[in-house]
């Protein structure tokens, strides 16, 4: 008879992924940002320009050099492909990413799936429309090993798509990992049209890269002043910031093993430490929430999608 008294097992670590910078930051800002990330508690860093093909502060070689630096600091690095592929130039860039073998690639669309299928293991980005288990299984068969759920999927649904008790298996027979967008302004929509250029009455081809001025995008408010959305070039985001720091148990129950934290211009390194201490070291949620709320850009905090509610709602009283 075993008389050993077991202490409750510590919950498994939730890995932290720093998502791609969605805004147009200058090269120096970007370098400073990743120098900070290198020293943070983040496990994984996703690099690359995913929003607009015209943004070229960093070129492919720059991204690869940055990737090597971060890898040398012990981070897992993933290279993300552009979300909207429109031209042959976009496809060339995509093929360049798909052909390198040093880093895992995150697929932004079906063009990327076509280039990555059957090759090295890859990640399914949040803009691949996977809303059910059979769709995830189809993509796992292509060689995907990790899935970033669409931002509008509820936690409950994430658990149905890839149940922790009976996970979808990758091509090697291993459980496919689930990652969820857990912090940041939500990327909600993509267009060929640039709304930042439109706001400045400029054409997209001659946009003067005005989005460089908006470190966290350009706020769009309702006519009565409610912060609603953010214009980030061709991407439209939520004005409010998704925050799932208090959902540790529900996240684990849904089979989520990694959280995506989407970069913002202020206090992001603190966000990483808050998420790490609350979710992996059991510190107080309330305190961390207060600190995060102070730092986020206009719009406050939200978690509606996680609870099968409109995305702009916040469940914490």
């Amino acid at each position, binding site marked *: 008879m075993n008389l050993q008294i077991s202490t409750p097992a510590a919950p498994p670590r939730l890995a932290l992924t720093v998502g791609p910078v969605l805004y147009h930051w200058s090269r120096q800002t970007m370098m400073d940002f990743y120098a900070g990330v290198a020293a943070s508690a983040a496990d994984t860093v996703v690099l690359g320009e995913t929003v607009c093909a015209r943004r070229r502060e960093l070129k492919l070689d720059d991204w690869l050099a940055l990737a090597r630096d971060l890898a040398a600091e012990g981070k897992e690095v993933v290279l993300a492909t552009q979300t909207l592929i429109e031209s042959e130039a976009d496809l060339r860039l995509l093929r360049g990413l798909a052909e390198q073998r040093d880093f895992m690639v995150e697929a932004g669309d079906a063009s990327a799936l076509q280039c990555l299928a059957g090759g090295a293991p890859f990640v399914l980005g949040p803009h691949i429309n996977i809303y059910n288990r059979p769709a995830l299984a189809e993509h796992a068969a292509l060689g995907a090993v990790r899935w970033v759920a669409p931002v509008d999927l509820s936690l409950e649904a994430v658990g149905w798509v890839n149940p922790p008790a009976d996970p979808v298996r990758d091509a090697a027979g291993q459980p496919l990992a689930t990652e969820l967008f857990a912090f940041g302004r939500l990327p909600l929509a993509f267009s*060929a049209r640039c709304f930042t250029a439109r706001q400045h009455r400029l054409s997209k081809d001659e946009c003067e890269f005005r989005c460089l001025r908006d470190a966290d995008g350009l706020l769009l408010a309702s006519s009565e002043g409610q912060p609603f959305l953010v214009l980030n070039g061709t991407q439209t985001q939520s004005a409010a910031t998704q925050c799932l720091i208090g959902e540790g148990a529900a996240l684990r129950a849904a089979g989520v093993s990694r959280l995506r934290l989407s970069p913002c211009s202020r206090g992001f390194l603190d966000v990483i430490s808050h998420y790490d201490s609350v979710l992996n070291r059991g510190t107080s949620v309330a305190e961390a929430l207060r600190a995060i709320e102070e730092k986020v850009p206009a719009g406050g905090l939200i978690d509606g999608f996680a609870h099968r509610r409109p995305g702009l709602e916040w469940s914490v009283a």
Partner: protein
Amino acid sequence: MTTESGLPPVRKPELVCPAGSLRALQLAVGAGADAVYLGLKDATNARNFAGLNFDDAQVRDGVAYAHARGAKVLMALNTFADARDASPWYRAVDTAVSLGADALIVADTAVMAYCRDHHPRLRLHLSVQASATSHEAIAFYRQRYGIQRAVLPRVLTMSQVGHVLRHASVDIEVFGFGSLCVMVEGRCALSAYASGQSPNTAGVCSPPSAVRWQDTAAGVEARLNGVLIDRYAPDEPRGYPTLCKGRFEVSGRRDYAIEEPTSLNTLAILPELIDLGVKAIKIEGRQRSPAYVEQVTRVWRAAIDQACASGARFSVQPAWTATLARFAEGQQQTLGVYDRAWR
């Protein structure tokens, strides 16, 4: 084969028209549609509105009516199957097959896989909701699921459409007329963000159930789940408060910050679309009235026939423009992204 002029015959694109009801289907076929597309009365298609769409008996009647007159019936099954229960989507596939639909318009790889595994001879068209904007993306769906036609999102310029056409190994369908999504179809969760429902999963955008109209001292307000989308002065025409077509404040200026209420109309570039080799032209609007369907179909039938007969001498008839303008959103029309002006 050559024509009398020695030139290859013009490939006449198929005119694909919306049918939100059996009446609309009959009027579309009567007005010259080569194909009509329809959906079932549930969340399996992207126009899931009360009072719209077909039950099984209506599909059967519609298929019989269209086939008797040489027109095809395409069934839209273009939302993403529910995580808890995908069976309504699979049942819809079986229904389409048993009722004789000529093709399915699909977006979800789960649905495509079901078709491939259970109905391998069923013709599949890739819905615009699948967001395939490059020939590589189209090749992905063709190689794995055997899609035979792709509907291009309304975000590509003419030269980009041409590039896709030259490299794609399937038929290409483009939108010709109707409401304009400024976002890439299938990649927009704005409506879900505000209301909890969006095209991908619920088959609706800015759902009527979440819309509230209020008369206030400042004007008539249109709200979507409480968010003020637009406010109209007494003399201003009021549009449906589709989220992306509202007036908002950015940097202290109130305007249509995302998109004006306007309709896509590509009549002016029809000869170019035909020259590029576009196989089908789609009219948007299953949610519109049978009268819209009939009159818009009639205009496009005449335009396609004339463009194919007269080539470079094609000109847009003022009567066509007048008819389409009556049905355009906000009475405004645009070439959309096909026209590079705003780039």
